[in-house]
């Protein structure tokens, strides 16, 4: 599998010259599967740029949504394939006892927030309410599980041949839980992330920032690193950057993360901040297959 990051920012888009290197677009990741097909995870504003490139070449598109907070769906309205009659788009997202996935997404793609309604989109779009479960899309086996965040939220484990990616973009597994000592069966997301070749995980806050944000559904650095070590992830891509964190800040944050990762006994070169346009060959030896 090959991965490309189209948006790694959390909460709200954060454009500006001080954000250029890591990017200001919100969550969106593109996966190229072993048969050449494409799987998209999350539809933050990063999906807009992705859509420009794939609108004509990919009539069938699967999008996995972790949850329906705006930073994970805002780009849907500007996703070029939605406006092509040839497109067949399937959107998978967490189910809720309150309303169907289509009804909940339609609250965004409808007046007064949007000039068009879902039913007016020229593409063929199917919404798949997704409980924790396993299924297949092309050569990929998808495993979805509920994870600790605010509101119904899924994490995804995607296995294609011998390689495994786990994507848990919004996650606070350390809330009220001592991650370093808790039994694995009690750690949110453990089964999803166990032994992944690549773990993409929430790391919105420094440890110093976290006390002001406890319970908001996001991780501090120490919890992200501890979680990654507990699940034996080969490689960690820290994700969902706080909109206040500039490029220079994230550079320092990454250095701090690498030092603490080494203290935890993690392998060299396995920790990285996600950045827009970054490409990764999943399963490649650490330090290879990365282009930014």
């Amino acid at each position, binding site marked *: 599998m090959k991965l490309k990051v189209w948006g790694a920012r959390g909460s709200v888009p954060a454009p500006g010259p001080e954000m250029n290197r890591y990017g200001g677009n919100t969550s969106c990741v593109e996966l190229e599967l072993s048969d050449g097909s494409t799987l998209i995870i999350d539809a933050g504003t990063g999906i807009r740029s992705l859509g420009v490139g794939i609108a004509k070449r990919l009539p069938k598109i699967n999008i996995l949504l972790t949850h329906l907070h705006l930073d994970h769906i805002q780009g849907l309205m500007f996703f070029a394939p939605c406006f092509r009659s040839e497109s067949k788009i399937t959107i998978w997202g967490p189910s809720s006892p309150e309303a169907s996935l289509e009804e909940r997404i339609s609250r965004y793609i409808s007046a007064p927030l949007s000039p068009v309604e879902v039913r007016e989109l020229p593409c063929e779009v199917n919404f798949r309410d997704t409980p924790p479960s396993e299924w297949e899309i092309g050569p990929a086996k998808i495993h979805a599980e509920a994870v600790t965040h605010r509101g119904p939220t899924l994490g995804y484990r995607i296995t294609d041949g011998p390689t495994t990616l786990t994507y848990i973009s919004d996650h606070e597994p350390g809330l009220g839980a001592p991650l370093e000592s808790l039994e694995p069966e*009690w750690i949110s997301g453990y089964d999803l992330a166990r032994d992944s070749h690549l773990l993409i995980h929430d790391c919105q806050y420094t440890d110093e920032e976290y006390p002001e944000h406890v319970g908001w559904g996001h991780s501090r650095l120490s919890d992200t690193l501890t979680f990654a070590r507990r699940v034996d992830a080969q490689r960690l891509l820290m994700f969902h950057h706080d909109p206040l964190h500039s490029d220079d800040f994230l550079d320092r944050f990454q250095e701090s993360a690498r030092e603490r990762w080494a203290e935890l006994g993690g392998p060299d070169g396995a920790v990285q901040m996600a950045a827009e346009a970054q490409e990764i060959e999943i399963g490649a030896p650490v330090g290879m297959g990365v282009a930014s």
Partner: protein
Amino acid sequence: MHQKPLELILARNLLTSLSTPAFLVDESGTMIFYNEAAGALLGISFEESGRMPAEEWSHAIGPFGDDGSPIPIEQLPTTKALRQGRPAHGGFTVRSMTGDDYEIESTALPIVAEGGQEGAMIFFWTRANNTRGAA
């Protein structure tokens, strides 16, 4: 061992943070966690006791009726919460591992997730001046 459902993980996280004595049981009635306040009442921490099937914990700590006999399992708030999916309340006696009896009131709250019944949280309130001698 399979990972616990998120609803039970969150329930444990909540109970861990409370000073109200509380237990967590799974859908089979197995006690899968209790917090430090409950451990203080029972005279043994969860880390020491570990998980206990329903028969084991009901034999060890009760609850017991006024005559000292075990209360039938169907009448327990926990059972009502698990089988009927509704909150239930009751008052009775429990016995700590040190042999002290406590009169308590207990409320069981079902944990129902999308896939159905996952378990229940049981909160305890000890009545004032309620410690009786070892039975």
